[in-house]
């Protein structure tokens, strides 16, 4: 495994490098990239190492009236340790907490998890359920916003253009009338750590004081070529009272979630198993 590496220390230098380099890949935490390059060496490749970029906009977290913005280099560990995120978006906290191991979470970044665009990306799944927006910055220093659902275009493919870098992710604030939301991340696998999701389900269901559902985001992982938002299942929930969801409604909801799944059979599980389990864990949200 050999590659050239350049280490920009500011966003400006980073954009300069993107402009200059012809054959490059971004390296954030490099937890996926190094494994990939070991398997498939890429001759003449330059890795633009993002880990030395110091700009707070790229590494930090900021709260505003609109929501919370994380820089692309915000790490999984930082997500886990952030009390505000834990309180406001439990689904994100859970997804980061279930990611790999303590050691890997120190370097793995939210941007890396998104740009790898794995169908089983855990943080990605949570952010889809949260309906986050991706902020893409190009070499002319212009930004554009792309909703996360359209950011993923296929297995390991994203909407990023060759002259763009993922700059930050903004999670919209919760509905102002919500209280005690139902939010969590269900990861199915064989081990309790160092595990890649066999199936995952992220949900962020916002309810008002009476428990009536105002907004819902439900996303599935490792069940389709990309992480998917189960929009019809989300709509189905609006207006219902969370605690009063009937067995029949639960099943209807699970069926709707399942309609977004088109899983594959691989070494870790069959398509049959993934569907079976996805249906079950979808119901389990209300149990």
């Amino acid at each position: 495994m050999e590659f050239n590496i350049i280490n920009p220390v500011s966003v400006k230098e980073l954009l300069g490098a993107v402009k200059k380099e012809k054959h490059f890949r971004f390296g954030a935490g490099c937890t996926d990239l190094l494994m990939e390059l070991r398997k498939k060496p890429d001759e003449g490749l330059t890795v633009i190492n993002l880990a030395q970029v110091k700009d707070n906009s790229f590494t930090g977290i900021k709260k505003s009236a609109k929501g919370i913005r994380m820089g692309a280099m915000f790490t999984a560990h930082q997500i886990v340790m952030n009390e505000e995120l834990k309180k406001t978006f439990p689904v994100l906290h859970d997804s980061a907490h279930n990611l790999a191991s303590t050691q890997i979470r120190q370097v793995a970044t939210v941007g890396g998890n998104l740009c790898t665009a794995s169908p089983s990306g855990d943080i990605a799944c949570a952010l889809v359920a949260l309906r986050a927006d991706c902020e893409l910055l190009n070499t002319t220093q212009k930004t554009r916003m792309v909703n996360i659902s359209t950011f993923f275009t296929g297995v390991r493919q994203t909407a990023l253009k060759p002259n763009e870098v993922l700059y930050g992710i903004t999670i919209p604030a919760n509905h102002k009338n919500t209280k005690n939301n139902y939010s969590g991340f269900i990861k199915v696998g064989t081990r309790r750590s160092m595990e890649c999701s066999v199936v995952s389900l992220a949900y962020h269901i916002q309810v008002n004081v009476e428990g009536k559902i105002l907004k819902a985001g439900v996303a599935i992982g490792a069940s389709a070529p990309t992480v998917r938002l189960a929009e019809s299942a989300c709509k189905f929930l609006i207006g219902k009272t969370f605690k009063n969801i009937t067995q029949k409604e639960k099943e209807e909801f699970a069926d709707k979630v399942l309609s977004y799944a088109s899983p594959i059979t691989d070494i870790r599980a069959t398509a049959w198993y993934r569907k079976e389990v996805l249906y079950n864990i979808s119901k389990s949200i209300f149990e």
Partner: protein
Amino acid sequence: MLPKNYLQKKFEKMKPKLKVIGTSVPKQDAGTRVTGKAIYGHDIKLPGMLHGAILRTEHPSAIIESIDTSAARKLEGVYCVITADDVDVNNIGYKRDHPILKKGEANCTRDEIAAVAAQTKEIAKQALKLIKVKYKVRKGIYDVQEALKEQAPQINKFISGKFSNKNIAETFHYEHGNLEEEKKKSAHIVTRLFTLPRMTHACMATSNVTASYNTLDKKLLLYSSTQVPFLYQRDMAHALKMNPSDIRVIQPIIGGGFGSKLDIHPFEPICALLSIKTGKPVQILYSREEEFIASPIRQPMEIELTAGVDKDGNFTFREINIVKDNGAYTSWGATTPFVIMQSFSSLYKLKACRFNATAVYTNNVFAGSFRGYGNPQATFALERVIDLLADKLGMDKAEIRLKNANEKGEVTGQGLHYDTCGHKDCLETVIKKSKYHSFRNTNNGALRNTNKNESTNNGSRFKKGIGLASMLHVGGGAKIYRSDGCGTTIKIDPYGYCTIITGSNEIGQGSETVLAMMASEELGIDLKKIKVINTDTDVKPWDVGVHASRTSFVAGNSLLGAIKILKEKLNKKAGELLKSDNTAYEYENGNIYPLRNTNKNESTNTENKASKLTKEIANTDSYIRNDSDFVKLDKVVREMHFTEPNELAVANFFYEPSSKFQDKDFKGNVSGSYAFAAQAIEVEVDTYTGNVKVTDIYVAQDVGKVLNPLLLGGQIEGGILQGVGYALTEELLMHEGKILNPNFHNYKMLTAADIPNIHFFPIETNDKEGPYGAKGVGEAPLIPTAAAIANAVCNALGLEVIDLPITPEKVMKALASKNTETIQTKNK
């Protein structure tokens, strides 16, 4: 998780008089290891050293039509390229059926076709790519039944063909009692066919060897991770056509053995050959992927077990037919039926047994030895069938086990002598501690809400179950080689420091710490002043190696024998210096105290009824020690060395266990003592995902005597997690001879996060053969684990488990078609 100090608390009352033995002394090399200062094989760098790499076959079964190494030889930085045509060597392996480099055909995905020595690892790898091999691909045989068909081609051409079928590598037959008679007496008979998977050791340190051949004196130095240095020296010499004494084996710190380093593997003589050819040191290190592909596995097998029970619940007979997938070559793994038959013939009282095992060649990867040596497979089948027999009888599953449990003084049908036996104690302990009966009685879809993401408040999703299993294993070595003994040389220097030169070796199990503790106990020397030398075949005396849970037992007894001789010398000189005619002395704090006997009947050593070799000092009231009446140990040694008649404070001892070779019918008392254990395991099965969560494991193990609670706890915890992996997650998946998951990503070895609550209860039976009464403990913790987990899953779901591992997918398939009543669906 384990409560802090749980071991100390548990063992507080078990050390009445001993001062060091029975205390939690950390491993002597713990600090070195955790600070990264340990020197593993990977850290060795010799001047001018080259790097070796091996080209393996592209196809598990193929004719090798030609090998062109010319381009590789021309590459700058390449010193040597070898193929089978370039070397004059013998085959390796237990049956000598394994060529080091393959010629003419490839029969296994691991097959070594060529090897390179080059200046750097990168050049070596590049050179491998330049080697052109022409293959004619064959279909290959990956199923034992296919291999046994008449039209199947012969897979291994190096065997004599003494068996009925050309693809049979080895057979075992054993029987005792009148099987037909016992069948007639049986009220119920159960037959099941069980399938066991390939599991790999996954040692944290990958395989490695460094060879340095001296072209002047024609001697070979090897830095190797072998578990059996003297057998390794012999096998290496045979392979290379050398004199064994011209080969020196040094063991650097070993990062995991678990049996994987019992056999010699082709990469080791290949590395030696590269060094011999180049006259330079050569090192071969495996990558993690190579480790998964080319290191041994636990032998996969099909076990058909028929067992009977009479109307009162007494076991009557067992009939066993085992077909093992031998892979392409025969390793020590083929001899696991020695141990397997022991469990079938002698675990629980049994009147009649007939046992057949056949190892069949295929084009799959071959096995090796693995902690438990066939016993986890045997115990899984046996303990599963015991549950089924209990169900047929309508008898309680704990009761049927207690009724048939082995007892002290029993001589089994196979001729094993149970001089001590904690079988019943172990079973009773886990039954009581796990509240086995109240658990089973209240288990009606009970729920435990443990994790927000895994559990809900719906009573039907999580099913709890509890399972029991026990085990028998050798606890005092196993006489399978001409000697199961161990030699020791002990010396004390003029400054009062002690050096133990032992034949045994350390592969991480903590034996050197336990040996140092014994010397400290007996000689009153501080542990910091005791060194253990155990890594060099040029220095140390004979020992058969680390296997069969034997090291503390055999090397311990050997050391105690040497100490006894040394003390006689020291006592004599101390008596002279103290102008005393005492015969009893106490060694403590670097001093020797004469003891005065106040009791006329001379009863000595009432506390230590266990070993003949341990402490002869008296701890009874009849002896009196005057604390101001002593001579310093180092002074005694100086006086021995430097005054006439000038004697060294050195002693040698060779200990050979009392065990016997088994006869040709596999009967005889093969071990110096026997270890027993029982486990009760609670599981919670998630019927939404099929995940089996092991919540609590209650372990009782007859360890004879606890020598070091901390190290014992380590063996128990590590073994159990390996057992849980065998039960639930670990399997090397293969398709047509190729390994599909050669990485930790898809080979699901469990992590620290998966450790269940472990409740450990040591049972002390004080075996008179063992050092301080101790038995071997290393393998036992993992042996009954898969069996108990399978029984617990069956209890939880009302289904049958007939193969391992019990993956979530298999559970879901079984739940989806509950009428089939078996969890066997292969998810491949």
